[in-house]
Each structure stands twice: as C-alpha cells, then as structure tokens.
C-alpha cells in the first residue's frame, strides 16, 4: 500500500471528532504482524506499559506466546514444548509471569533470570493453582495466596 496524503475524520469513542493530519502517516495499528514482532521483543515492564496504550495493544499483549517467549528468553537450554500444555492448564504464561516473576523482578531488577529461577516460579505457580482449587473449594472462600510473600519482604531472621 503506497502512502498517500489523507484527510479524514476520526471519531473517538467519546464522540469528539479529530482531524487527521494531512501528512502520510504509518499507522502501526494497521499492521498487526509488525506490532506482534515489536511487542515480542520487549522486556516485562515495557510490555506492561504497552498493554496500557490502547485496546489493540492490550489485546495483542494478552497473547500468551509473547509471555512464553519472555519467560524463556534468558533460559538456556530451552525447556521442552510439553511444558506449554502444563502451563496452559495452570493458567498460561501471562498469569505465571504476573504472579510469580513480575513481583520478584520488580523488587530485584538485577536478578539474573536463569533456568533455576524459572523452575522455581513454575513450582510456585503449581502451589498457587492447587491452593485455589482445593483449599479455596474447601474453605468456601479463596484464601490469600501463599505467593503473597513474593510481593512483600519476609523477615527470616
């Protein structure tokens, strides 16, 4: 598609009208493939920011394969693909990242993320899942997640 000058009226969702500039503009939102390629290469905090940009970006940022790639980016060798079905059953990579990895990286930004850390996160994720499933069902009310310790410093003295 060649870039042409266009004048158009764009209707915002809250009904204000805005004149589009009379300048050839490449709109990234018209190119879903490009957007995915770029978001795939962001780090966690930037990806969280990107999810707040607009509805399309928010939807694309929910793509679990992007989070899967983020989880494995610095892990070598790559875990086997069968892991994917397990993580999906537990709630997906995005959930894993938000629950188990993000709190840690937010508090320890220089932490080297390796296979061991990933394994530990996966174990914690399982704990969280079964806690919700069994303990929650038993108590009739979801208890606070054991994983709360990831967000708050724990005094182990």
């Amino acid at each position, binding site marked *: 598609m*060649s870039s042409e000058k266009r004048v158009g009226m*764009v209707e*915002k*969702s*809250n009904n204000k009208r*805005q004149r589009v500039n009379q300048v*050839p*503009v*490449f*709109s*990234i*939102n018209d*190119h879903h*493939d*490009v957007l995915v*390629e*770029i*978001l*795939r*290469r*962001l*780090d*966690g*905090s*930037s990806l*969280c*920011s*990107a*999810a*707040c*940009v*607009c*509805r399309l*970006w*928010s939807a694309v940022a929910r793509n679990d394969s992007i989070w899967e790639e983020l989880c494995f980016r610095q892990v070598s060798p790559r875990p086997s693909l069968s892991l994917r079905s397990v993580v999906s059953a537990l709630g997906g990579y995005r959930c894993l990242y938000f629950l188990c990895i*993000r*709190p840690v990286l*937010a*508090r320890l930004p220089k932490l080297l993320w390796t296979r061991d850390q990933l394994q530990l996160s996966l174990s914690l994720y399982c704990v969280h899942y079964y806690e919700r499933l069994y303990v929650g069902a038993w108590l009739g009310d979801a208890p606070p997640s054991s994983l709360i310790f990831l*967000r708050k410093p724990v005094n182990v003295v």
Partner: protein
Amino acid sequence: MSSNKILLTSSDGESFEIDEAVARKFLIIVHMMEDNCAGEAIPLENVTGDILSKIIEYAKMHVNEPSEEDEDEEAKKNLDSWDAKFMEKLDLETIFKIILAANYLNFEGLLGFASQTVADYIKDKTPEEVREIFNIENDFTPEEEEEIRKENAWTFNE
C-alpha cells in the same frame, strides 16, 4: 553458476541486480526460484524501490553471516557497528516499512533486527509517550484505562 545474478523489480518499477547469494537471504525468493522463476526479473509488488535498496544494502553486508562458533570477534563487532549506523540514519516510518518488507520477503535477520530497534525505542516509556511516538489514540474509557493500569502495574510502590 555460483555468481548468478538475480533481477528484482520493486513495486514502483525500480530494478536491482544482485548476486544470487544475496537474493537467497530472502526466503520468498528462494521459494520462487524453486518454483522456477530463476533467470527472469522477480517482481516484488509489496516493496517500493527506496525500501528495497536499503534492504539489499543490509543483505549484502550480511551475506556471509558469521556462525555462532565464529571466533572472529573483530568482524562481529564491526558488523554490529555497521548495523547500528545503518539504523541510526533511518526515521521511524522507514524502519516500519523495512519491517513490513522484511516480513513479506521473509528476511528473518533484518526483520528481527529492525523489530528489536523499534522495541528498544519504546523500552521503558510510559503509555502516553508510546502513544505520542506512534500517533495512537487512547480508545479506552476512563474506567477501562484505570483497570488496565492496575492490572499491569509493574511495581506496587510506584
């Protein structure tokens, strides 16, 4: 046989003659050659001349891609430095067009590099700054935006 020339034609009629080895970086062309278009001009309908010339420039530099085990640190550093200078000169719109074209041509190396360049550009930026850069409208309602921000808050102290 090994220094075959391939003729590529852009969507706006510009022609580029390049070595087969360079053309083989574009997997779409490899497939076309396997399907018997070799020897004729290959039309690339989705790529304009200006973008194609940049892509070919990059492909020529990378035609002998050093392998992972390659010991030549000096050569790698020089190539990285060339790559950085190549991107520096380009504005964002051109980089986007390159990403689109590299995607169409199935030129993995440049697609990855250009995408990473844009990703680095928006790294650590706030949503407002990102919208500014890409001229994107905020189409969330205030309630949606509040919810999305809470959901995606990176730290719990900020």
